[in-house]
C-alpha cells in the first residue's frame, strides 16, 4: 500500500480548513422587524419622583454631516413626536410648564443621521452642533453625562431624547443628563412610517423605564 506522507496530509488538511470555512452559512435576517432598536439609560443615583415639572421644545434638533443647513425638524412630524413624549411624561405624573417657569426637568429631542459610521462617541457629543441648543439654554452649566453609551455607533438614523436635571443644576454646578433614550434603525422614505416607528419607539422607551415616574 502506498504510504500517505505527512506533508500530503497537511496540505489536504489546510485545503479542507479553507473549504470548510466556506461552509459558514449566511444568516437569514429576513425575519428581523423594521422596528427601531430602543435603548435607554439612566443615572443610577437619581430618584425620579423628586421632580414634578418638565419642559420640551416643539422642535427637534437635526445633526447630520450630509446637510449642514437642515438643523431643525419642525412641522406635523415633529409635533406628533413631541406630543408622544409629552403624553408619556404626563401619564407618568409630570406636569408640562413653559421654559421660563423653572421646570425641574429639561427634555431635548434630536435626530442624527449619517454621522461617521463606526466611530465611538460618548453621549452628549452633539453639544455644539448647529441646531442643538447648547450654551445657556438650560442655564449656564456644563453638561454632565454620568452614564456610558448604550449604543456606540450613530450611522443610519437615530432619534434621541435626553432629560436634564435642571432643578439641581445650580447645586450640582452642572447639567446632569439623568435619562436618555436612543431609537436606532433605518429611516423609511415616507415620513408617516418614520413617525409611526418613532412614536412606537418612544412608548417602548418609557415602558422599559418604569422608574421614570413621579
Amino acid at each position, binding site marked *: 500500500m502506498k504510504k500517505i506522507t505527512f506533508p500530503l496530509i497537511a496540505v489536504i488538511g489546510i485545503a479542507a480548513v479553507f473549504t470548510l470555512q466556506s461552509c459558514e452559512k449566511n444568516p437569514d435576517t429576513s*425575519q428581523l422587524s423594521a422596528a427601531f432598536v430602543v435603548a435607554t439609560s439612566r443615572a443610577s443615583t437619581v430618584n425620579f419622583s423628586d421632580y414634578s415639572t418638565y419642559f420640551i421644545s416643539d422642535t427637534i434638533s437635526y445633526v447630520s454631516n450630509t446637510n449642514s443647513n437642515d438643523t431643525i425638524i419642525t412641522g406635523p412630524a415633529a409635533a406628533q413626536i413631541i406630543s408622544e413624549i409629552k403624553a408619556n411624561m404626563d401619564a407618568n405624573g409630570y406636569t408640562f410648564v413653559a421654559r421660563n417657569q423653572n421646570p425641574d426637568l429639561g427634555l431635548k429631542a434630536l435626530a442624527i443621521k449619517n454621522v461617521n459610521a463606526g466611530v465611538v462617541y460618548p453621549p452628549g457629543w452633539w453639544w455644539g452642533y448647529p441646531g442643538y441648543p447648547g450654551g445657556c439654554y438650560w442655564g449656564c452649566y456644563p453638561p454632565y453625562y454620568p452614564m456610558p453609551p448604550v449604543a456606540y455607533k450613530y450611522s443610519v438614523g437615530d432619534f434621541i431624547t435626553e432629560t436634564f436635571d435642571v432643578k439641581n443644576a445650580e447645586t450640582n454646578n452642572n447639567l446632569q443628563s439623568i435619562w436618555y433614550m436612543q431609537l436606532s434603525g433605518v429611516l423609511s422614505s415616507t415620513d408617516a412610517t418614520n413617525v409611526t416607528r418613532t412614536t412606537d419607539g418612544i412608548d417602548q422607551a418609557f415602558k422599559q423605564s418604569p422608574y421614570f415616574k413621579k
Partner: protein
Amino acid sequence: MKKIIIILIASFSLAVTAKAQSLHNLYGVSWEVGFPVGDFIKKVSYSGGKLEYRHFLKPNISVGGTLSWNNYEEYFTQQTYENADQTQAITTDNDRFVFTLPMTIDGFYYLEGGATFQPYVGIGLGAQYSSQSIYYNIFVTEDKNWGFIARPQIGTLIKFSSTSPTRVMLAGGYNWSTNKNEQLKIDNLQNFWLSIGISFTN
C-alpha cells in the same frame, strides 16, 4: 485448469476477507446534527458535517484527525435586555448565529462487536475556530475567536458485508470548547451532537 481457477478464487476471497478484518486506514464523511447547550442559542442545527481520517495502529486502536463544522441560528422575537444594575435597557428582536469549525486529533478504541458492528469510544482534542453574531435591525455585533476543544464520543462502524471496504458510521458526542466572547457574554461553547456518515477503508 479448473482446479487452478478454484484455488485462485478461494485465495482471493481469503485475501479480501483477511484485509477487511484488519483495517489500515479509514476515510469518512458525515452529516452532523448539533444540539447547543446554553442560553445564547437553543435551536438544533441540521447544517453541520465532518470529514475524518483514521489510521489503525492495531486492529482495535486508531489515531487520526477530524474537521467538522456547524451553523447554529435562532431568531428571538422582540424583548428587553437589561444590564446587571438595571441602569440600561435595550429592546429589539434579534437573530443569533454561531459558526463552529473544530479541528481535532483523535484517538479511538474499538470494542468487540460481532460480524456487523464495530463499536468504539474515543476523544478528539484540538482547536476550534468560531464566529458568534447578533443581528438586530440593520446592525450586527460579532466576534471571531479560537479556543481549545475536547470532543469525547462513542460510535459504531457498520459493515455492509464482510468483504466491502465501505462502512456506515454512526456516532454521538459532546463538544466543549474555550471559545469566549465577552461582548455577548459567552464563556465557552458546548453542544451535543449526533452524526451519520459513510466511510471507505483499506
